[in-house]
């Protein structure tokens, strides 16, 4: 399970946690998010996310 960071606003998507409040179950891989998914913080597209170094 990885974390992904939005390089525009710094929002972190944690695959382990998912986003249950938005219907994304814990354990959902970033790659499995819909292609039109956008950063919940700034609205940037998926391409704005990069793997976050621990």
């Amino acid at each position, binding site marked *: 399970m990885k974390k992904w*960071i939005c*390089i*525009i*606003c*710094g929002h972190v998507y944690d695959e382990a946690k998912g986003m249950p409040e938005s219907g994304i179950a814990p354990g959902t891989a970033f790659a499995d998010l819909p292609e039109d998914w956008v950063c*919940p*913080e*700034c*609205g*940037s597209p998926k391409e*704005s996310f*990069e793997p976050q170094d621990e």
Partner: protein
Amino acid sequence: MSHSPAAAASGRPEIDGAVFNPYAKDFIRDPHPAWQRLIRDFPLVWHKDLQMWLVNSHALCDEVLKDSRFTPNFRVWELAPPPKAEADKTDFDLAYEKGFFAVSTKDHLRLRRLTLPAFSRPVMAKIEAKIRDLVAECFDALGDAGRFDVYEAIASKLPVRAISRMVGVPTDREEFFHEFAVNIIKATRINISAREREAAVELTKPGFAYFKEQIAQRRTLPHPGEDFLGSLVGASDNGERLDDYEILSVVFALITAGSDTATDLHTFAIHGLLSNLKQYELLKRQPQLMENAIIELLRYGSFGKIPFFRFASEDIDFHGQTIRRGQAVGVNISCAWNDPAKYPDWNQLDLQRRLDGNLVFGAGAHFCIGTYLVRVQGGLMLSEFIRRYPEAELLDGTGELDYDYRHHNARRINRLVVRTNRVSLQQAA
């Protein structure tokens, strides 16, 4: 004056200052009638006096902000001054050209990637500690005052000093930095004359010289440091580094994003809370609401009077209109924050509001880079205010509120007097 879209030759809907005049005193005191009309009747309209398109509804503002064809690069503007010869370019020009607003989408992502470490948690934690001290200093200076002017004591002091601490300016140079910040902001405004802009550019020179020297010093060190400036100097991505003007452009962006906004945040936040005492009580009881509260207070205050500027980088067909290449587009986000389609109870302050998809810090690629700074600063200030003045109220119910009607960008409150009620509390104890 027309009160309906004029039958312009182009067929586009048009308004003038009779419908929306952001400089009018009545508007500054109460913008909502004009904004509600714009949202209802003119979601997308050409403003003849401002010579720009205005986008007013929440949905359309969201769309423009996320569409890279609408660039914030004012060099694209049809009325922009002609480009200068290389030899005539100032540090301001060179930093602007390398900055977030001017570079291509690809270079913008590279800049964001390289600057991300400077906004990382360890760097920000150090900055937060410095701002915490600064907030305490501002309140300590008030002593046991029975009343004080929030603008004078807090809002005019904290924001620029917070940025100066973030970028590592020593306290004895804060006034110097303040001047630099004011002129940086003025130099980017298209709603002042070209002459005023150039005068402001000229006045930024000492500030740029100072930061160039700081960067040069850091580059000579074995390690440039772990603070904000050091993180930028040391930033590396597959061997790529930020050059001097890119680093200057980040300081530039922080100033434009963080100083004006935070000044108004402080006055409007306190005004919002003390005008809605049930919400003030709620925040006292539930401090965990603070982050949401800051965003909602920004939305509720809606203090920006001038829209965000974007410029069409090509001819764009947009919701039935053709926006020509080079035309200015005013993204009227303060207006949009009060769109009943997004917020049915837009005129209520609700610190528990679901704010998903809000545009308070913009949206898309140019999402506000000063977000963290503004949120932290606002949160620390309000927490300290609540701790010290739990029974505060606006003096005479109004705070003797006054505005700086000539401010170039905001419905700036420049007087807001709070009765602290500290003495009565002490007497009661």
